[in-house]
């Protein structure tokens, strides 16, 4: 009792909903929806708020996004490699205080002070990376511990009060009315653009970056595929700490003086930038997306500020908006697709 029927050409493809599929394909490569969200918010601002298109508004958004985006750079790297870094705030504060104290109070040269700050970043990131990798302790708790340790040490060093003032030229870097080589763009924006290009390229086009993804997606497989998983993990944490320290240095210029809590708001905000951008734990996403995330959040902040809502309403709207934006593209796979 044999039944047999004719069979079509044995290839997959064809049929389905081609347009939707193509869009999906695109979204996987390019953060289309993130761009769309950003454009929509900006246009909303243009149409509802007088003067929203002005250069002043644009630069305010860009300066804010630059600091946020730089703070989110390290977090992006760590999230891609499959970890998380809750010590970013402490490193930002440390970088900030070190510059202000050493330059402002102890009259060191800026170069030497920056070197010390970066060294602190390297050592701190190393501790984060080594402890979490070598002993397989949850990165969350290691980074919280390092965070407390570092802020404690900084606090002790300055005996509880930051007194220094940052060098004036540092302040010009982050001024919204600043110029870069005579061109009327705030230097911090240019710095951010350069950093974004470099990190973006490193992540997507170099071995170090590829190793980051491989490790983040599947650590045992990466190890078997000859990735030096331990190095990759540790370098990622070092990169995160160093980048955070750099943000601290920039913030010293921004605010003009040292402040041991200056990094605190950046902890969840930078994580939010990563998330809004669409970078997910374990190897999905890239730094371009975080850049968009930071821009989206900064536009939202400006819109809320322009509407003069109460702080409570601002929070509720921000939280809701993030959820809506991320809901467009950043959701998990269905359970049934994972069997």
């Amino acid at each position: 009792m044999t039944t047999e029927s004719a069979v079509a050409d044995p290839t997959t493809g064809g049929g389905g909903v081609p347009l939707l599929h193509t869009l999906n394909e695109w979204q996987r490569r390019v953060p289309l929806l993130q761009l769309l969200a950003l454009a929509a918010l900006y246009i909303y601002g243009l149409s509802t708020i007088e003067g929203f298109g002005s250069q002043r508004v644009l630069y305010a958004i860009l300066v804010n996004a630059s600091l946020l985006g730089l703070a989110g750079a390290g977090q992006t790297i760590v999230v891609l490699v499959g970890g998380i870094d809750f010590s970013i705030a402490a490193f930002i504060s440390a970088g900030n205080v070190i510059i202000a104290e050493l330059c402002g109070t102890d009259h060191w040269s800026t170069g030497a002070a920056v070197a010390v700050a970066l060294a602190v970043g390297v050592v701190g990131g190393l501790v984060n990376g080594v402890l979490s990798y070598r002993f397989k302790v949850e990165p969350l708790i290691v980074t919280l511990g390092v965070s407390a340790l570092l802020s404690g040490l900084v606090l002790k060093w300055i005996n509880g009060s930051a007194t220094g003032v940052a060098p004036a030229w540092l302040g010009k870097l982050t001024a919204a009315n600043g110029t870069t080589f005579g061109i009327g763009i705030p230097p911090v924006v240019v710095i951010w653009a350069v950093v974004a290009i470099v990190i973006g390229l490193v992540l997507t086009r170099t071995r170090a970056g590829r190793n980051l993804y491989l490790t983040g997606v599947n650590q045992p497989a990466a190890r078997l595929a000859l990735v030096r998983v331990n190095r990759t993990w540790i370098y990622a944490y070092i990169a995160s700490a160093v980048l955070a320290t750099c943000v601290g240095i920039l913030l010293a210029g921004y605010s003009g003086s040292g402040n041991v809590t200056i990094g605190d708001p950046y902890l969840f905000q930078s994580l939010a930038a990563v998330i809004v951008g669409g970078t997910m734990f374990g190897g999905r996403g890239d730094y371009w997306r975080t850049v968009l995330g930071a821009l989206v959040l900064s536009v939202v902040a400006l819109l809320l500020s322009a509407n003069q809502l109460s702080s409570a309403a601002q929070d509720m709207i921000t939280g809701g908006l993030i959820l809506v934006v991320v809901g467009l593209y950043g959701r998990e796979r269905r359970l049934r697709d994972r069997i």
Partner: protein
Amino acid sequence: MSEQSQVALEVTGLAKSFGATRALRSCSLRLLAGEVHALMGENGSGKSTLVKILTGVHAPDSGGYRVGGRAVRLGGPAAAIAAGVMAVYQEVLVVGPRSVLENVWLGADGVFRRKISEADKRERAAAVLGELLGEAPDLDTPVEQLSLSDRQACGIARALVREPRVLILDEATSALDVATRDRLFEAIARHKAAGMAVLFVSHRMDEVDAISDRVSVLRSGESVATLEAEDATTAELVRLMTGAEHLTDIPEGGAMAHRTGPAADAPVLLRVRGLRLRPDADPVDFELRAGEMVGLAGLEGHGQDAFIKALWHGPAGEGSVTRVEVGGESEIRSEQRAAAAGIGYVPRDRRGEALFGTLSIRENFSAATQDKDTRFGLLSRASALGRFAEYRSGLKVRMGRESDPITTLSGGNQQKVVIARWLARRPDVLLLNDPTRGVDIGAKRDIYALLDELTARGVAVVMLSTEVDEHIELMDRVLVFREGSHSTTLDRRSLTRQSLVAAFFGRTVTSSVAGSASPDGDS
């Protein structure tokens, strides 16, 4: 087959697409109560998709579904289980940290309401596991502490304790060792007699021969034929699966009958001295020659896995692994060293140790050979693609675009990409840890042919396989492991099913796989 047999489950004209991929085009299938119905098809032909539709995991785009003569619509696996349809899936699905008992009874209770008493659960779990494993493991040990085979047995027991009307095994035997598989077949025979319908998905002809009453074939998402077991010759099945005639002329004694083994003066590439796999086991000595193809066999967990891993990352305990090269010798102590010395390793657990799930096919392929794609410090996409093209055609990888996620490939095709990753390093010694698990007959032949070509060029291959036929067809010699020691070596002349399986049990008398459907009283 009696026309009066009761229809346990029937589907007609099922279709299912994932994005642009049409996994099922038109699939019809009728399962009768009391039959073992084998389902065969190439990798990616839609078998697992069909299984997932049958169990409510996926909803079909169109098509009819009847259980016991009544049309049903399933909202999820729970509904299918309630309707009496339960499956063991292609991947080993267990909850590692939870106990054997919990794993076996997973999903049997409601979220807040208990449906079966604890005592009943213990009793029935022990009985079913006893049936499958000879002796039930401690029901309170976490499943992750069991061997892969025993873990899969727990997954199978999960289906059996629920006494489904229709049992579906989707390549569920590929993770089982020979002894457990034989006991499973016995159990199936008993349940079949009690009226259970079994849908049996496998790429292994011997297994299909051993237990099935009828065989259906899927090709590119369409059901092309259903044969009575006696009509289902390998040649006919391969013809139906591929829709082509050229593969049917497999020579007598297998495709590799022409193999003669390495030349007598072939240089030694790898030397193992006094390698102790377990503190209480005898040390192993071994030499691997260029152009040789060596199989590693034994019951699950008897040392062959530890052995092949020791060749890759060096001995965990006593002993030494030395790579012999023209320039001198180097001892293998880490995977980095092994790789530098021209050794390649294809791991066993695809999902856990080889696949980068969210990354593309190209990125998965080039993971271990990034140095070859680096131009001016940047990775070159074109270079990786160029290298991949060669393996893609050689291994006949069936795929969409290279930039698609690897997860869009079927299991067998994923495996081909993983193998290609290592071939691309052009190793002198290739270590393969059960590389054809879940690979269809056609693809297996592609891989065999490739290995043959490699060994002809002087590459040495060490391959662990759980498939008896593979050893017989392919290997120049087979090392059989028993209780952590190397117990026997069988060379090409003395390799038969009987001798090999007997060696697994440390015996010379036989319990052949082909005979396993009729139990021959060894236990």
